[in-house]
């Protein structure tokens, strides 16, 4: 029996509940199991263009649901999604899905023994438009050309008819676009209270390139990635070297200590269960000596939108290296762009003398994932959570991370 309380009555017809619709959907597809996921999100965004001082706001509600089904032998199935409230979207999904050909299900995640859960963030409320605009005007650095901030409250519900799960989240996002740099900076927090506590300006200042100097990057200097660039490189490494199915045992540097920890209240995307109904549990991915595990499988299935089927995604990763003393001779990486190459990445790095010296010429370098994690020495300072949900401090790498 689904705990969804929604039901609707058309004039003269019997009340149609979610349970009714799920049961009918199951019959449509031969009586196999069905699963329904619904997300309702109310959001407010304020955009500010500093050059024109134009402020624009938008607000609204987006909701919709996705239906998955399997045939009774669990050999084929389908996925459809439609916008609307619970009953409207489920009705629409049923209408679309009735004519759909049964297609391969491959290795789709399906949890036959899901348990009911409630995972509700303490409501601190979503800030009003005026509060968001005030924050933008008071906190946006002078060197930002345009900025936006968005606050949203989402309610997600998942059911197979026999077990229901519910999750409520408030999240705040912002984006600062610099005046002389096309690469914007994202900020994110899981409540307005956390948002107001964070030091966004510190992150911005870490990007400062320093006075220009036409000097080459010193070949023997250690490399310290800012927390922002550390998050970029750590995410790329986690995706490459801890991907589902990867074999454990590869050597890593003493600084490569990584865990997947999706349990609430940790992390931007922490939750009791994932978006396919599986419980989330912590997992060590690397222990400073070896690759221990991958991030895939039950507990890692997430949906970017209600229109997406659940797929493994490392959204709750923490890099927690042993903290080390700041290296004497090192380069602080202020900006990083990774471009896929045959055996890793071709990277464009911008850096300055650490801790606050003048900048070097941009460096192009081949980076190989295995070499990178083996050269990770440790971390500096406290961890920060990126908009991808990855938490890391500034990571320190030995000079030989470069291949050239």
């Amino acid at each position: 029996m689904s705990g969804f309380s929604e039901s609707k009555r058309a004039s003269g017809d019997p009340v149609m509940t979610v349970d009714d619709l799920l049961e009918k959907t199951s019959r449509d597809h031969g009586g196999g199991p069905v699963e329904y996921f619904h997300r309702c999100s109310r959001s407010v965004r304020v955009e500010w263009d500093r050059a024109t001082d134009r402020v624009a706001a938008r607000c609204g509600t987006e909701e919709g649901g996705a239906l998955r089904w399997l045939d009774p032998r669990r050999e084929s199935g389908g996925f459809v999604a439609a916008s609307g409230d619970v009953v409207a979207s489920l009705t629409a999904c049923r209408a679309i899905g009735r004519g759909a050909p049964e297609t391969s299900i491959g290795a789709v995640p399906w949890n036959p023994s899901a348990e009911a859960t409630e995972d509700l963030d303490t409501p601190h409320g979503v800030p009003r438009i005026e509060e968001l605009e005030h924050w933008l005007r008071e906190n946006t650095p002078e060197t930002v050309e345009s900025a936006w901030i968005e606050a949203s409250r989402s309610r997600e519900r998942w059911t197979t008819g026999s077990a229901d799960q519910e999750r409520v989240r408030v999240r705040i996002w912002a984006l600062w676009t610099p005046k002389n740099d096309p690469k914007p900076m994202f900020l994110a927090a899981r409540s307005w209270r956390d948002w107001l506590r964070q030091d966004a300006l510190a992150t911005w200042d870490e990007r400062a390139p320093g006075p220009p100097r036409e000097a080459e990057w010193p070949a023997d200097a250690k490399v310290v990635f800012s927390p922002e660039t550390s998050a970029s490189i750590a995410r790329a490494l986690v995706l490459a070297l801890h991907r589902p199915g990867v074999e454990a045992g590869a050597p890593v540097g003493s600084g490569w200590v990584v865990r997947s920890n999706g349990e609430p209240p940790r992390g931007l995307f922490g939750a009791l269960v994932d978006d396919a109904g599986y419980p989330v549990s912590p997992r060590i991915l690397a222990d400073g000596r070896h690759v221990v595990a991958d991030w895939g499988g039950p507990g890692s299935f997430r949906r970017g939108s209600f229109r997406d089927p659940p797929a493994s995604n490392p959204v709750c990763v923490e890099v927690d290296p042993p903290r080390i003393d700041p290296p004497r001779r090192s380069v602080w990486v202020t900006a990083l762009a990774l471009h896929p190459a045959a055996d890793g990445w071709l990277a464009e790095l911008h850096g300055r003398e650490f801790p606050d010296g003048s900048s070097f010429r941009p460096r192009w370098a081949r980076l190989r994932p295995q070499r990178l994690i083996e050269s990770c020495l440790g971390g500096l300072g406290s961890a920060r959570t990126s908009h991808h949900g990855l938490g890391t401090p500034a990571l320190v790498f030995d000079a030989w991370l470069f291949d050239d």
Partner: protein
Amino acid sequence: MLDRQWDGAIRDVLERAPQTTVFVERREDLTVFGETADDPKARHTLWAGACVERPDRPLTFHSDLQPEQLPDLVSGETVRALGERPGPTPWLDPAPAVAAVGGTLVEARKRLPEAHVSARWVEFRQQVKIGRGAALFEDCRAMRRLRLDAVAGRHGRTAAAAVEGPIADGDNYISSLVEGLSGRIAARLDAIDPAPGPSRVLFAPAIAGIWVHELVGHAAEADVVQRGGSWWTTDLERRLDERLTVIDDPRRSRAAWSIDDEGVPPRPVALIREGRLGELLQSCRTASESGAEPTGHGRRSSYREPILPRMGCTFIANGDEHPDEILQNIHEGVYVRRLESAHTDARTGRALFRVTDSDRIVDGRLDVPLRPFLLETVAWKALAAIEAIGNDLAFDRCIGSCHRLGQPLSTSVGAPTICTGLMTVRV
């Protein structure tokens, strides 16, 4: 279809508040994906919604809005719940797409038994109604395309290749795509690294369209120019080769529109006309702020987003040289068959492209294939270094969505064979 009841609801709003803009959308997306080792999987989604814009008020949106709920959205009240309604009749039928992807994989298995092949069918259909001023507008946009990717190995070396194209009814697209894929994957197994540094580049037909989309098109979006964020404003007096004309015409796009999302019919805009910088791409807002006329390029990727000036189909007009003669005149260079944008800075005109399929040119002929590499270019330098423009204009042989400020949009590009110098190969 969007109910005719919408027309009356929108007109009612416009009569009461003529300054209001109403945008209503229904959209279906169908993706079918298959791999050599597996049967195809389908994903069929339907989304609908509406937004309302009024002067000095926030843009307000709501998904799955019904005509009788529009007054609530306009007034800012909570949108009231409605009773049950029947499920929609879908526009798109997944069955032919699943069959096409399955058939493609069967043919690919025959031709490329050793390769891992995947096929992706992407299709959408969108209907919009727009109320603006005293008028009501309606448009329907649709697109479908198929992309094939292959990975193969030989003697410890691996190679990847891809082909794709828009699909029209009646095309014998499966055979031609599989044939194209099998030719490239076999050749690419012998690929070598290109020589890094400055290089002469010859773009295959259609491919330079991506280059001008990034370098010229984004720099000509009027809101970017008005913010001072475009190289266009700083280099306005420069002259280019008078053979160069770059046009954006949304009516030629693989996902063409007959009115934009503000109700304005699009017209072709010459971004560069015979070597001189031409017009900008305008929405109603950017046009009113600069005293220009809207060009019909105002688009939003969904009812949740604000209008931006966007490209539809950006292409380089035909030149008069034969492509074979252009190739014969190149002593050393690279022939680019596929590329994708990696980074663009509209302010400086600097852009990076990832070249995923190319050949080395030696003494006027195509030599060995090259492994993927980055191509760095600066708008003015590369545009000024154009040496030859072919007479073989083609469209959409390398397809991608354009993402701008978080808004994806299906766009088209086109170009004839183009030769330019002053690009930097990075490996």
